[in-house]
C-alpha cells in the first residue's frame, strides 16, 4: 500500500493537483473499509479481545505519515491498525493478527493492540495508556546516538496526557532535544474523549499545548479532519525535527466516529446528535471534495478506489480466514532470546 512512499522533500502544493493527493485519498478510503471489515469480523466472533478502530480519524495518521520517510519509526497505542497499513504492512498479515493466526504481523501473539512490523518501522502497538511514550523518546535518542537521520513518530490520545509516563517522557524529550538528541514528532490524536470521559472532564486545562510547552517542546494545533492541513503542518515540522533533532508536538483535533472499542455500544457519554454533527466533517468526504475541485476527481474515480479498497479488505479477511492458528510451540518462543546463551 505504501508503494509510493512520499518524500517530505517534494511538498505538493495543496492548491494544485498532484497524484499524491489521490493516492492519499485512496489510502484513507482503504483504512475506512479495512476498519469496517474488522468491526464486522469482530461481531462474527472472528476477532477477539479488544478492538479499537480509527474510523473518523484517518486524515491524522495519513497526513502525518505521508511526510515521513522509509526508515522512520512509529510508536502507537492500541488504536494502531491504520499506522501499520500506512507503513506498508501487508493488510492480510494485519488482519491475520487480529484473527490470531500464525501468519499475523506479530505471529498472532500480540493481537489488535500490539501490531509490530519492525522492518517497516512499526515498533508497536501498546496497551498501557501512555506507556509507549518513554520508549519512543528513548528510540529518538538512539537514532541520533547511532548517527541515523530518521525521526520517531509517537501517537497517543488526549486521555494519555494525564498519566505519569507522558510527563516523564516529555521532560526527558525536552531535555535531550536541547542537545539535538531527540528527533521525535509527538502526535496527539485528540478525539475529545478518553473512552467515555470528555476532555473537559479529564484534563484540568483543555488547551493541551500548554501541557506540552511546559517542557520546552513547541506545539502546533491542526484540523485533524483536513488532510491538507495535517500534511501541510507535518511537512514543515517533520523536516524541522529531522534537521534539528528537537522534539515537536502536533495536536490533531479529530473525532472518533465509532465507539471507543468494539464493546462500546451504548455510548452514554455522547449524544447521537453530537456524533452526527461530527460526521458532517468526515475527513474522506472533505478530501474528496477538495480533489473534485483541484483535480477534477470524478465519482467514477472514487468508485474505483472504493471497489479496490473493498476488494483489498476482503482479500485481507480471506487471507486471515485461510491462515492457520499459530503452531502450539509458538507458546514458548520469544519469551526471551533463543539460541546460544550469553555468558
Amino acid at each position, binding site marked *: 500500500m505504501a508503494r509510493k512512499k512520499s518524500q517530505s522533500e517534494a511538498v505538493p502544493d495543496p492548491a494544485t493537483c498532484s497524484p499524491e493527493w489521490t493516492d492519499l485519498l485512496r489510502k484513507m478510503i482503504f483504512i475506512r473499509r479495512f476498519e469496517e471489515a474488522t468491526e464486522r469480523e469482530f461481531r462474527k466472533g472472528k476477532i*477477539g*479481545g*479488544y478492538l479499537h478502530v480509527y474510523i473518523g480519524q484517518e486524515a491524522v495518521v495519513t497526513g502525518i505519515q505521508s511526510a515521513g520517510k522509509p526508515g522512520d519509526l512509529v510508536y502507537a497505542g492500541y488504536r494502531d491498525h491504520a499506522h501499520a497499513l500506512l507503513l506498508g504492512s501487508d493488510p492480510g498479515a494485519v488482519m491475520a*493478527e487480529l484473527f*490470531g*493466526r*500464525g501468519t*499475523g504481523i*506479530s505471529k*498472532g*501473539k*500480540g*493481537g489488535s*493492540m*500490539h501490531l509490530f512490523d519492525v522492518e517497516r518501522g512499526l515498533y508497536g502497538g*501498546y*496497551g*498501557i*495508556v*501512555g506507556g509507549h511514550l518513554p520508549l519512543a523518546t528513548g528510540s529518538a535518542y538512539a537514532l541520533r546516538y547511532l548517527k541515523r537521520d530518521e525521526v520517531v513518530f509517537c501517537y497517543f490520545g488526549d*486521555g*494519555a496526557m*494525564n*498519566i*505519569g*509516563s507522558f510527563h516523564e517522557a516529555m521532560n526527558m524529550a525536552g531535555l535531550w532535544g536541547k542537545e539535538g538528541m531527540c528527533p521525535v514528532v509527538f502526535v496527539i490524536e485528540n478525539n475529545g474523549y*478518553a*473512552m*467515555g*470521559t470528555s476532555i473537559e*472532564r*479529564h*484534563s484540568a486545562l483543555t488547551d493541551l499545548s500548554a501541557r506540552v510547552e511546559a517542557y520546552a517542546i513547541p506545539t502546533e494545533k491542526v484540523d485533524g479532519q483536513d488532510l491538507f492541513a495535517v500534511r501541510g503542518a507535518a511537512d514543515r515540522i517533520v523536516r524541522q525535527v529531522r534537521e534539528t533533532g528537537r522534539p515537536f508536538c502536533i495536536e490533531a483535533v479529530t473525532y472518533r466516529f465509532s465507539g471507543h472499542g468494539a*464493546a462500546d455500544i*451504548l455510548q*452514554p*457519554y455522547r449524544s447521537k446528535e453530537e456524533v452526527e454533527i461530527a460526521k458532517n466533517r468526515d475527513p474522506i468526504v472533505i478530501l474528496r471534495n477538495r480533489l473534485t475541485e483541484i483535480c477534477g476527481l470524478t465519482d467514477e474515480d472514487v468508485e474505483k478506489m472504493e471497489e479496490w479498497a473493498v476488494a483489498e479488505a476482503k482479500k485481507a479477511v480471506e487471507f486471515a480466514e485461510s491462515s492457520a*492458528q*499459530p503452531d*502450539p510451540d*509458538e*507458546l*514458548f518462543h520469544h*519469551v526471551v532470546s533463543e539460541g546460544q546463551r550469553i555468558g
Partner: protein
Amino acid sequence: MAEKSYRDAIHETLVEEMERDENVIVMGEDIGVYEGTFRITAGMLKKFGPRRVIDTPIAEAGMVGTAVGMAVLGMRPVVEMMTMNFSIVAADQIVNHAAKIRYFSGGQVDVPVVIRGPHGAGVQLSAQHSQSLESFYGHFPGLFVVAPGTPADAKGLLRSAIRGKDPVIFLESAALYGMKGEVPDDPDFMVPIGESRVAREGSDVTVISFGKMMQLSLKVAEKLSADEGLEVEVIDIRSIRPLDLAPVLESVRKTHRAVVVQEQWKLYGFGAEISAAISDEVFDELDAPVVRVTGEDVPMPYARNLELLAVPHEPDIERAIMEVMYRD
C-alpha cells in the same frame, strides 16, 4: 438468601455501603458517565452524584494516592482499577505508601482504602491485560489481599474490606462476573478477611485454590466423585493475605495429599507458598509431594489456541489429582 451474580453482589455491596456510610465513595476511570467497563458501577453516578462517584483521569498512581489521602482523614474510598493490570502503574503508591504509612507513622493513621477490579486471564486480551496479581501484592505486609470465588464471598469480603481500617487489594475474577450463587440478605453480612474455607468436603485428596481456578476445581471434584468415586476436598483460599492455613492443614491431615491450582506463573507464585507452608507444618502427613497446577511460564499470547494452552483447565487439575493419588 437470594440468587445473585458475582457482578451484582459487588455492585449491590457498593451501593449498600454508600447508603449506609456517607464517607464511602467510589472513584476510577469511566465508572460514572460511562457506567463502568464491566458495569459494576452502573447507575451509581445518578444515584450518588459526582462527589461520591468520581470519574478520574487516566492516572492510576494519582487515583490510589489521592484515595489514600482521603482515607487518612476518615473517608472510605473504593478505587476501581479498570483492570488490575493497570494497578501496576500504581504499584509504588500501593506497596510503598498505602501499605506502609500506618507503620512508619507509628500507628497514627488508619488507611481504609479498597482497590478493586478484575484480574486474571480474559479472552484474548494478550500479555499486558491478562495478569493475576495475588503473589505480586500478597508479598507485602501492611496490605490485605482477597480474591473471592463466589457471589456470597464477593459480597461478604467487599463489605469487610470497606468497613475495615486497612488497605485491601480486592481481586475479582472477570471470568466469574456472570456466575450466579446464593447470597445472604443480611445487610451486615460480612466474610472475615483472613479466613479460608472448605468449599467442598472430601476425604481422598485436598485441592487448594481461589477465584476462578477454585470453581474449576469444584467441577473436577464433582466429576471425579461421579466417575471414580474419588472424594476431593476443595479449600478456597479467599484471603491471600493474611493467609489462613488452618483448613488446609486440617484437610491434609485427613487426605495426606494436596494439589494447588493457580492460573498465574509458577515461579514465585501462589502455589509455592501453599506448598512450602504445607511442608512447614504437616510434612510428615504427606503421602505424596504437593503438586502445583499453574499457568505456563510465558506472557499471555493473543491467539486463542495459544491462550488456552497458557492456563490450566479441568483435565490438568484431574491429572494432578491422579498424580498425587499415584493413579493413572
